[in-house]
């Protein structure tokens, strides 16, 4: 059996908990995520779907080790990373990278694209010379469908789709084995969304990347995912292959989600229910 690239067991997170005085009157906080386990293999896409407040982003952030779980373990390529302090974690950080919904918010507006993308290289491959770094950035921009000549520009000079390409280039420059993608195409127009989804697909095929793909858009999930986790109020209520989830949903919530999927032709319209 191959080792999964990403693996999480029994993840738990509560927010707003406090101990109180002498163990009395403490606030147990609110459970954001409970008993969530998942694994993603190389070349595979696992999607987490759910609505706002379902805990899907909190789960992603724990897998990413941006927040520490209260309980449970996280492994990257077989190595345990939950419980590690920042210093111990740093050399492993390049293995799993994150792509955010709004790439504009995650790029420093005062840094050129070249410097933003090269940041990870400075940490993970400090021996590279300036010229080598620049060369890597240029290659990566090309692979993500951007002109290398653009690297001297600043984030505001790019469109939404280009910024997402920059976000992807920045994540991939340190040669990760997995990407955690948090609503990566939700802020994009349909035509740009298609460009980015195609790019992600190509990159996954050529580099056998593992994707943990967070999305509320079921059409997108159906298109990209191999397996799906459905989350509701912090818990996984159903999981399975994308075919099983979409053609034979078991949990009432999954069925409700699928029923809410937008129609694709006016002929599918339901009659107006007058009250």
């Amino acid at each position: 059996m191959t080792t999964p690239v990403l693996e999480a067991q029994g993840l738990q997170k509560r927010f707003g908990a406090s101990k109180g005085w002498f163990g009395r009157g403490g606030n147990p906080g609110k459970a954001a995520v409970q008993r969530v386990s998942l694994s993603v293999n190389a070349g595979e896409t696992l999607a987490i779907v759910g609505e706002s407040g379902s805990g899907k982003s909190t789960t992603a952030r724990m897998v990413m080790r941006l927040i520490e779980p209260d309980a449970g373990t996280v492994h990257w390529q077989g190595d345990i990373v939950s419980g590690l302090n920042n210093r111990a974690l740093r050399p492993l950080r390049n293995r799993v990278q994150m792509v955010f919904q709004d790439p504009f918010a995650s790029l420093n507006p005062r840094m050129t694209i070249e410097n933003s993308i090269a940041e990870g290289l400075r940490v993970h491959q400090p021996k590279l010379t300036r010229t080598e770094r620049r060369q890597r950035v240029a290659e990566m921009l090309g692979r993500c469908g951007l002109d290398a000549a653009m690297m001297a520009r600043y984030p505001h000079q790019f469109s939404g789709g280009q910024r997402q390409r920059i976000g992807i280039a920045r994540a991939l420059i340190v040669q990760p084995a997995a990407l955690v993608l948090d609503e990566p195409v939700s802020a994009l127009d349909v035509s740009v969304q298609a460009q980015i989804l195609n790019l992600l697909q190509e990159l996954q095929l050529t580099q056998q990347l593992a994707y943990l793909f967070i999305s509320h858009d079921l059409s997108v999930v159906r298109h990209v995912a191999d397996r799906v986790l459905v989350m509701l109020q912090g818990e996984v209520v159903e999981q399975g292959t994308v075919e099983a989830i979409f053609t034979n949903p078991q949990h009432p919530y999954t069925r409700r989600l699928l029923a809410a999927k937008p129609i694709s032709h006016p002929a599918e319209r339901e009659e107006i229910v007058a009250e």
Partner: protein
Amino acid sequence: MLEVCNLSLSVPINGEFAQAVHAVSFRLEPGKVFALVGESGCGKSLTAQALLRLGEHQGVRRDSGDILLNGDSIFSFGNNDLRAMRGGRVAMVFQEPMTALNPVFTIGSQLIDVIRTHLPLNKRQARERAIGLLADVELEAPAQLLNQYPGELSGGMRQRVLIAMALSANADYLIADEPTTALDVSVQKNILALLRRLQHQRNLALLLVTHNFGVVAEMADSVAVMYAGEIVEQSDVHTLFDHAAHPYTRALMACRPELTEKKGRLPMIEGQVPAPGAWPQGCHFADRCRHVAADCRAAPLSLSTDHHAVRCLHPHLPKSPT
């Protein structure tokens, strides 16, 4: 009837005016839903805002054309007429239900305030009306809701409150700019169903601004597709979904992932929408069009005047014409 005639608008970019909407015409009729669909930057929101003369404070300039409300140009309106029109005869629901309500006032005070601005009611009567409106948008316990603050409500509930507010003075025209974009999927469907029911019951003329063909499929009677400031195709909703003729409309509809097999390569539109001020001389879509021919770039194109109007020299013709 609310009629947009040949409207062109410019916006200030780096101190100069650049045209952002060009020669847009359509009309809103009672009992009908008209959808303006397009991607960001195509001018759809700018057009919708012009119907209430919003945007003028941000420097949006009308270059030519007119908007007629029952035959009167809204650009001839003084402040009193404008105030009576906004929220009175023509009302708007915005995308972001989080920011459209004031967080420090109760739902009741905001709703009653709007009602009393437009209708000659005393406080008690306005309160009664507010409760009726909240019930009409299917909110439970409307009387208690009046004392709650926007922060205590979910996104879907807030959008319902905003719809109630928009309808508080019996507007004939409702403009909804991406009314469900910021909401969860399961909530979206309910809000659309509510809008359809209200529109039907009240015989409203609804203008729906959206980037989402699913919303168009669900709601619209007729549709205009906008690209780079212009309407490129306009028809009834069934014709558009079955016989789209403009290469842009066809490409945009084909991008939707649900139409492509799993993990298959999605059809794309290469390049980007040209910005206002950088439009090509001929067809605005020419640089990205797969079917571009030499004559496409020669001169500005006009929209054909058929029931199924297309702004293209080489439209895709249906195999079996209806």
